[in-house]
């Protein structure tokens, strides 16, 4: 009898639970279940800092351009839109975006956190990324030399949305060494190990005719990384004014109005923020608010970005910019390169040599109060032209020289000039000499000053 009674009791309990769950789940509140169409599927997250120190968060999200129910997404059109808001903290800004759209942001699938050059301290961003439930550890994190908003606003047609293209560009660049590791977890790993040092690649926008003078521009824009105070007071005023306007417009007015206001905002903003690059406003995305998917508002492009150089972050603050060459050298030393084509001159002809990393040996030794790190790179070569043995040898030597110079450049810049541990020295010390590692933990700067890196390149043909 008791058996039977228990069974009944169990059934009743299940029923009660079920009813309660129905009630609690349907009640609007914390546990409200949201369907997919009530979520903003965020592709990428852009973070800028306004002149008064607030965060401007830009969300690039799905806004499908399809025709009818059978083809909900038309890949020939840009299927994304952006929304941005300003608040004191990143979560607050996101929440304001959510309120604007009346949907909940779903960050679980964002692929990129883009930091505008005005971001002077990455620790709040990292904190946010780590502690927000749903953000993947594999999310890419990179800097841009413009504002994040500008980059995310660009409409492109080669992929479904621009963050996807960016991610693919990252992955491709990582193979040929022009980009460093940029997954969130690797940044955190580096920062944990080295008291806040890491390297983040820089995304740039392709400009119409000024591509040749990239490097000069870089150096000229170096100073403004993480330093929004350097901008002119006129810009500040303009920004503030427009931002306020846009905030009001998108919250209270109809969508068409908000569109126009945000358009004016972004164009004026790009004008003001691009002291060094004056040509960008023509393509600068016009999408502030929700409605930026309209085709007429701007031209969509096939490609719009490239990766050029990287920012050295030290003590969680952007410190210096590495050029493209330096980044390639760094990649050779750190994680290896799948394939990088290097031009070598044999006599008068120019040959292309494809270089890939095969093996890396490292050794740490102490000589005359100096910590000497010997890195022996084994590289494999492939030639695109038929060459004689001798020619091959010369080509290899030339390529070796080139790579050596790249590596040296990276060492000079990062280690000698900035004294930043981006060569995994902490790990080398830890694995080879524990006493030194302890010292490194205690006094990183001093130890790093003593470090010398020797590069030796062994070719494998």
């Amino acid at each position: 009898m008791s058996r039977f009674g228990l069974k009944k009791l169990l059934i009743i309990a299940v029923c009660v639970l079920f009813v309660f769950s129905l009630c609690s789940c349907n009640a609007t509140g914390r546990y409200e279940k949201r369907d997919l169409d009530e979520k903003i599927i965020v592709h990428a997250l852009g973070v800028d800092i306004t002149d008064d120190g607030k965060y401007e968060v830009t969300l690039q999200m799905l806004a499908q351009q399809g025709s009818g129910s059978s083809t909900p997404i038309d890949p020939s059109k840009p299927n994304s839109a952006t929304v941005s808001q300003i608040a004191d903290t990143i979560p607050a800004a996101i929440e304001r975006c959510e309120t604007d759209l009346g949907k909940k942001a779903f960050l679980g699938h964002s692929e990129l956190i883009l930091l505008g050059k005005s971001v002077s301290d990455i620790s709040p961003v990292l904190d946010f990324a780590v502690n927000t439930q749903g953000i993947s550890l594999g999310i890419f994190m990179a800097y841009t030399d413009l504002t994040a908003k500008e980059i995310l606003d660009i409409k492109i047609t080669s992929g479904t949305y621009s963050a996807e293209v960016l991610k693919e560009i990252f992955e491709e660049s990582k193979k040929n060494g022009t980009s460093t590791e940029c997954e969130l977890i690797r940044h955190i790993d580096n920062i944990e190990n080295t008291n806040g040092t890491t390297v983040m690649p820089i995304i740039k926008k392709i400009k119409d005719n000024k591509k040749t003078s990239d490097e000069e521009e870089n150096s000229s824009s170096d100073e403004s990384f993480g330093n929004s105070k350097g901008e002119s007071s006129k810009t500040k005023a303009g920004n503030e004014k427009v931002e306020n306007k846009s905030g009001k417009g998108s919250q209270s007015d109809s969508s068409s109005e908000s569109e126009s206001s945000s358009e004016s905002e972004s164009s004026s903003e790009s004008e003001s923020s691009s002291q060094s690059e004056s040509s960008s406003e023509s393509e600068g995305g016009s999408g502030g608010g929700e409605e930026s998917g309209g085709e007429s508002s701007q031209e969509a492009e096939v490609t719009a970005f490239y990766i050029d150089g990287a920012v050295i972050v030290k003590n969680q603050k952007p410190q210096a910019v590495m050029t493209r060459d330096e980044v390639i050298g760094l990649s050779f030393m750190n994680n290896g390169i799948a394939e990088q084509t290097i031009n070598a001159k044999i006599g008068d002809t120019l040959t292309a040599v494809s270089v890939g990393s095969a093996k890396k040996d490292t050794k740490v030794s102490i000589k005359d109060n100096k910590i000497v790190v010997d890195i022996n790179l084994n590289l494999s070569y492939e030639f695109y032209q038929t060459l004689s043995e001798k020619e091959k040898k010369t080509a290899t030597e030339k390529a070796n020289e080139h790579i050596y110079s790249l590596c040296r450049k990276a060492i000079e810049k990062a280690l000698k000039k900035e004294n930043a541990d981006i060569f995994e020295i902490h790990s080398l010390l830890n694995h080879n000499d524990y006493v030194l590692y302890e010292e490194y933990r205690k006094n990183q700067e001093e130890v790093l000053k003593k470090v010398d890196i020797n590069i030796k390149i062994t070719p494998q043909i």
Partner: protein
Amino acid sequence: MVILFISRIFYSMTFIPFKYNDVTCQVIGFSIATAIECLAVIPLIILYKKHPDKNICQVAYEKSKFLGILICIAFAFAAVLVINRLFRYFGYFMYLTFPDFLPLWLVIGAVAIVSFYAAFQGIEAIARSAGIAFAFFILSFVIVAAALITKMSFSNVIYTYPKFSNIWHEIYYELSRFSELLLFPILYPYVKEKAGKSIYGAIALKLIFVYLIITVCVLTLGSYLNISKFPFFDLGAYAETFIIERLDAFLLPAWILVAFVKTALFMFVAKIALATGFKRVKSNVLLLIVSVAALAVSLAAVLQEKWSFNVWDKGVLSILIIGLGVLLPIAYCFGKGDENE
């Protein structure tokens, strides 16, 4: 019968969300703790050889009725504490990883009901479910590890010098979680294999799995471990396959299954212990009482969001584990021997 399976399975589970303070300390502390555990089960095995078909409560009850009842209640009490801790842990995990998911009381209530149902169906149902849950756990672990294999790197390993206090803490922490010691004395009459074999098999398996998990975590996550709360789940969040973008929610089912098996086992133990002590009451009524008690205690804690170790876990449970799992078998091994002469 398949108790070997069971013990294996929850061993593995207990360690999934391990607190990371220091890999080296953890490995050393864990190894030492395991060695101690191996020693601690010896009296149990001797007891098993003496009374292969009687659990410890029955032995105690036959010797002295009052003491027997007391021991039975102690066992049930310990089981309630263990379930309570498990639920709190589980609640904490759900609270952190899936915060807007379901009300916590519902989550825990559902696990409790399923566990109750399992305990109600008896040890064999639990054992067989455990077998499948174990297979599921291994499968998900292997998938996650395989998905991460390209992301593993030795440069992520950072050695540290172990500190004594840390090791000591680790040993203590590990031993206080050795609640399986409570299961053996009650469940061994159901074991069809040799008791020693199944116990040591379980301990060995636990050791292997913990080492495996630590290895994978360290190789992939690197220093991110220092700030991670549930490293095993971060593994899942980081793993990526071409069908499934993230595997952390994929690990959730494995974790729930394992949690449910463990809860069910302890409910069953409490039921058996109480049934020995109170022969007049129907055993399923006792089971209901235990389950409701455990659920109520845990809910009270969970709803107030008190997750951390409390006095009950640290002190009382440890004492109970040592008392019931080690001292009692010793007493009966040697005490009984004298009486027989």
